[in-house]
């Protein structure tokens, strides 16, 4: 059964149709990739799923429950968390706090608890801390827990974003270009991490331009171009799809035109 369903989803910005009647299903437990040229509307799809934008037309549902119109913060409660293409960390806070905040929707303590400090709250705090450290360890950031987020290098910041999204144990994790800015070596490590995340039962839906990574880990790939879905299938199907090659992949064999 499909976890997330996009049904005829369209969004327009003024005259521009950024996402155009897209139908898409994300299956429970899979790694699905969304690829397409720059400006095809991939990030916009993520923004639609997380209610940062509201679709002009169409329906989106998680486990059959509609998502359109539900405020962004409730989306996380329902089990979808994400990372951002342009990293959005809580830059002045410590790495550990960043992840703890990621666990927000798993906590219950309210204002009264803050002031009374009852044992139930302490227990919850301890639990959150433990989970957070676990998530940091998972993404190999444990040694940086006291660092201020903005002082991390780009690649570390990307991993921290994933840790923050992961700590709430979502059903569906949306990754927007997780490998951007990483070198090939780091990408290999990242690939391994994404696989391990999936193995804990979390469905992964990612947008990425690095074909080695996309082809390497996804079970299925959907392709967008000018807001429309132009292809969907297994990596090998997509790789050989003519339209995809023309619109997106290119030759894949870059050769310097100049003899040096």
């Amino acid at each position, binding site marked *: 059964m499909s976890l997330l369903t996009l049904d005829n989803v369209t969004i327009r910005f003024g005259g521009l149709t950024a996402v155009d009647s897209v139908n898409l299903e994300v299956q429970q437990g899979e790694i699905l990739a969304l690829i397409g040229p720059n400006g095809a509307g991939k990030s916009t799809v993520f923004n639609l799923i*997380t209610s*940062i934008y509201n679709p002009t037309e169409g329906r989106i549902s998680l486990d059959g429950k509609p998502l359109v119109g539900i*405020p*962004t*913060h*409730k*989306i*996380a*409660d329902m089990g979808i*968390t*994400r990372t*951002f293409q342009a990293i*959005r*960390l*809580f*830059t*002045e*806070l410590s790495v550990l*706090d960043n992840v*703890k*905040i*990621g666990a*927000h*929707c798993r*906590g219950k*303590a*309210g*204002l009264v*608890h*803050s*002031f*009374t*400090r*009852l*044992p139930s*709250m*302490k227990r*919850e*705090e301890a639990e*959150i*801390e*433990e989970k957070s*450290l*676990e998530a940091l*360890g998972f993404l*190999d950031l*444990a*040694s940086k*827990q006291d660092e201020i987020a903005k002082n991390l290098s780009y690649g570390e910041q990307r991993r921290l974003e994933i840790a*923050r*999204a992961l700590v*709430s144990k979502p059903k569906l994790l949306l990754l927007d270009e997780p490998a951007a800015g990483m070198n090939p070596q780091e990408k290999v490590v990242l690939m391994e991490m994404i696989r391990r995340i999936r193995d804990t039962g979390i469905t992964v839906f990612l947008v990425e331009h690095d074909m080695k990574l996309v082809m390497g880990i996804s079970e299925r790939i959907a392709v967008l171009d000018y807001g429309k879905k132009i292809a969907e299938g297994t990596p090998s199907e997509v790789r050989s799809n003519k339209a995809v090659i023309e619109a997106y992949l290119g030759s894949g064999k870059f050769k310097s035109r100049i003899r040096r």
Partner: protein
Amino acid sequence: MKKLLSNWIVQALLFLCVLGLTAYGSQIISKIIPTYILMICLFIGINMIMALGLNLITGVTGQLSLGHAAFMSIGAYASAIATVNYHVPFLLGVLIGGLVAGLFGIIIGFPTLRLTGDYLAIATLGFAEIVRVQFTNMKITNGAIGFLGIEGSTTFPIVITIAVFTICAMVWLENSRNGRAMLAIREDEIASSAVGINTTLYKIQAFAIGAFCAGVGGALFAHTTTFIQPTDFGFLKSVDILSIVVLGGLGSIPGTIIGAIVLTSAPEILRPLSNYRMIVYGLLLVVIMIFRPYGLLGGVNLRRAVRRAFMLPKKKQAGRGE
């Protein structure tokens, strides 16, 4: 021993002891120190309480508010009306002042929280002006003529006790789930909602608590001056409180405390300069900001600094994967 200390009942008892000692100690102090100094300390305390509230709104949650004096005035008038017209006991009056102000914090919170940055700032400023005009035109407040006959019940021990309580409450809040959510909102609203933080809720919480503190401060103020007028709560009052927060170090509780001490006593310390006093005061603000751009204690991790100063070992970190 350690286990005993983490029991909340023991903690609560300890806290009450501290409060009691503070109250008792300050009672003694108030007998020794000359009234002039004592009154300055009293105003430091009042300003500290109000500034801690604003620090929660602006420093922790990142919502620039230029209308804190409005909440202060609401607390001042509400408590004055309660104690004078309805003969409510003083401390209850203070509580009422805080609650009414907090309620207004929520009321102003709802519509204006859609606004961000400077748009929010001007909306809060506008709100404060509207409140002031309203007080000027109300019968029960006696308009511009002012509200007379308030008992001078505020004492140094009471102010210090409330200030200590406020500080503790703020420290607790900041280290809780709620506090972290507020910090997250300051850093990035979109990312906050993406991790499930109801930004509106926490902003309103911050406004409510911040306004409550301002209301309590206002109530204490009214019962110190014994006479209040709408002009006591103008824009410049809001600016004064904001200056305390920023100059001390945005988001820093120790900073706010230092800020309140420095900025409340500065006009008094500068008295010998006589006619040049305010000129120098203005310069002082500029100079402090230039030399400490993040405020007196901005960017200083007090806990770490203390640890370093006393060479205490770092807290053992659990789950360190090495």
